[in-house]
């Protein structure tokens, strides 16, 4: 009896040999922390998605999704954002290879497609407001403008960050801390894509389907 217990205890302690080697390096910590931050950002969007789902039918006698949404324009928007993200991926590779020219070019392409996306979105918003379908019109439109607008706001702030990163690389080169920030920026930009896929599906496609 006691022999088994002892053997058990022994195997127990073997299983608990220190496999953990201490604090992770800065790149891992930064990337990991930024992912946690992005998850919290996703929760904000989750709340806005929930609000949209609750209010989508509350049109208050105003226009509903199928009367407003122009899927063609949204498809172009989506394409622009995806291309922008692709370019952002290229910028990461260029940064990894420490190619300044490649990095600037790829970031510029990222910015251009980002701007196209924003332009189309602003155009869409402007068109809605012009038709008397602004966010004050109904609960549905409030939720729509807030959800899509919040994503747009993220893209706008991302653009600000993008140019700051270009300036940082120009001034400081590919230092370790700059590389970590480039990593975070690209995580951010890709996360916006994930959100957009959700918006495209749950807002536009589903809205028109309703």
């Amino acid at each position, binding site marked *: 009896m006691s022999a088994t217990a002892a053997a058990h205890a022994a195997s127990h302690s073997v299983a*608990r040999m*220190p*496999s*953990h*080697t*201490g*604090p*992770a390096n800065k790149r*891992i*910590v930064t990337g*990991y*922390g930024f992912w*946690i*931050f992005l*998850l*919290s*950002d996703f*929760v*904000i969007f*989750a*709340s*806005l998605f*929930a*609000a949209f789902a*609750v*209010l989508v039918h*509350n*049109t*208050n006698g105003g226009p509903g999704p199928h009367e407003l949404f122009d899927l063609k324009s949204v498809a172009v928007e989506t394409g622009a954002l995806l291309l922008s993200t692709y370019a952002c991926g290229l910028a990461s590779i260029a940064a990894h290879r420490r190619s300044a020219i490649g990095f600037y070019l790829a970031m510029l392409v990222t910015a251009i497609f980002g701007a196209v996306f924003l332009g189309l979105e602003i155009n869409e918003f402007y068109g809605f407001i012009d038709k008397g379908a602004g*966010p*004050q*019109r*109904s*609960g*549905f439109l*409030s*939720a729509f*403008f*807030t959800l899509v607008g919040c994503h747009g706001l993220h893209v706008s702030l991302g653009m*600000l960050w993008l140019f*700051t990163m270009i300036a*940082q690389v120009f*001034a*400081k080169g590919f230092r370790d*801390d700059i590389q970590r*920030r480039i990593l975070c920026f690209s995580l951010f930009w890709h996360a916006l894509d994930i959100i957009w896929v959700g918006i495209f599906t749950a807002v536009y496609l589903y809205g028109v389907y309703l």
Partner: protein
Amino acid sequence: MLGKLTWDAIPFDQPIPLAAGAVVALAVLAVLIYITVKGWVPYLWREWITSVDHKRIGVMYVALAILMLMRGFIDAVMMRTQQAVAFRSNGYLPPEHFNQIFSAHGTIMIFFGAMPFMIGLMNFVVPLQLGVRDVAFPTLNSVSFWLTASGALLVNLSLVVGEFSRTGWLPFPPLSEMTYSPGVGVDYYCWALQISGVGTVLTGVNFVTTILKIRAPGMTYMRMPIFCWTALAANLLIVAAFPVLTATLAMLLLDRYLGFHFFTNTGGGNMMMFMNLIWAWGHPEVYILILPAFGVFSCVVPTFSGKPVFGYRSMVMATMAICLIAFMVWLHHFFTMGAGGDVNAIFGTMSAIIAVPTGVKIFNWLFTMYGGRVRFTVPMIWSVAFMITFTVGGLTGVLLAVPPADFMLHNSMFLVAHFHNVIVGGTVFGALAGMTYWFPKAFGFRLHEGWGRWSAYFTIAGFYVVFMPLYVVGLEGMTRRLQHYDVGAWRPWMMVSVFGVLLALVGIVLEIVTIYVSIRDRESLRDEVGDPWDGRTLEWSTASPPPEYNFAVLPHVDHEEYYWRIKQAAARSETLPEEPHYVDIEMPRNSATGFVAAFFATVMGFALIWHIWWMVGVAFVGAYATFVAFAWRDHEEHVIPAETVARNDHARRAARAKALKAYSPR
């Protein structure tokens, strides 16, 4: 030019808030002048305001929390006295003032009292217990603190400039919409919480990353002290729940500022969506408050029982179970919405289920005392008081989770008594236990035992005398937030309750005396060794106060009770472990980023509240420029040479070697 801000914003016609505001403003001014005259400003700026040291930030969090707890307590005194006198009369507080007071009381106590206290303790303790030098993002940590302080400042500013929310600690629409609350009160509430909320989320991100990625070698998950587990759970809750609050308040703000229709009566809004969203954050919030307190007790009870915590794995499992179930019970805050039998039954049952892991924790502390040698120091007094009080609070909580019982008690004084029973009895007792327990680690001397004991007795007695009568009036049908009432049966209980406030006040005064006496007699209360309580976890292995870098060399952990074991081994062999090889240590440099960014955040919040749009723009540019300036710096770290490390550690070892002779191993 100044938006809605005019001289009307200053309540010249209302003597009570004006006088209170003037006194506070004068006190702050006096303190500032005193500090300046004494020449302490450079020291404060260098060592505290710009510090990115988790220990300093932790201390500042706790200091802010104590200040705000006192402000909230003053509100409580006003509410209790008002309800004591406002029987068939209007008392001394008109409704528009009384409603601000209970709203401010709840907001301040939860967001700027209890939460910063817990976050402060986590800040101070977690890296020390994990055996590391700092949190994952030290500068971000400073930003978090100063944003919290910024929110607290805005809430207190509303005392003198404008008004505070009059809709309760949660601004339920449509009452909080522009139609029914046209003043700036709700805006103060929302912007203060948005700003401090950003700080809280960043804290959550920081601590989840720290606990998951920055631990001493060998510190596997199942070797972390329970406090680190509860901190992990609380911060996971922060990361997952606080963004919901941010989004919900943003929607309310859009309704108020731009005429959106999220929660309005008209235009297709849905007020019950607010209830669902706010409680989807609000229920996890109470576990954000209580879980770290559970962690404190899981440190205090084993230490003063002279035993490891009983059922470590159960404790971990219970903590994580609470963390998960916390998200599945929000609807019990509005059973009376009339959602139907199935919905109410499911959420009622889920709420009752949370009592299981919580009960397990109580039993495990109980069995930690079993077979121990319990020393009734001040932290232990708080802990035993907690176990009893929290069990009672848990009982009434589960009672409220039974829908038909809730139909009678929802929104009543019974509910008020219940949540104070768990939040005061759990979080506040835990905060005070933790403060007393870790005070010597932070400052190098203990708090005076005798005075602290009396403070605890009075506060605990005061708590019971205040809140037990509220259970009774709740059962007599008294609803909460009544500015006056005409029911004779409630009156005597209100008088008893106000007497309890007096007892609690004595307790608080005694706590201040304790701190004063302890500072005065600090030489006789000095903790030379760094282990005043015969502790078991890693924070007690370093000096008190710990050096900036915490540990001369990172420990190599090989057991749950690693420090306890090496301490016993050293005591048995009467020799300290071998002297390590010291190397240079890199530590992050101080940064004004947090302070400056919070300055701009405060300005932006104020400008938004009063619709001063140009100032909003200026503040945004300022905040952005601050971060760019931070990103532009070339030197992130400074080096502490190995000789300095060695010198400090030699002093620590000498003190330990001396103490070793007097220590008898267990």
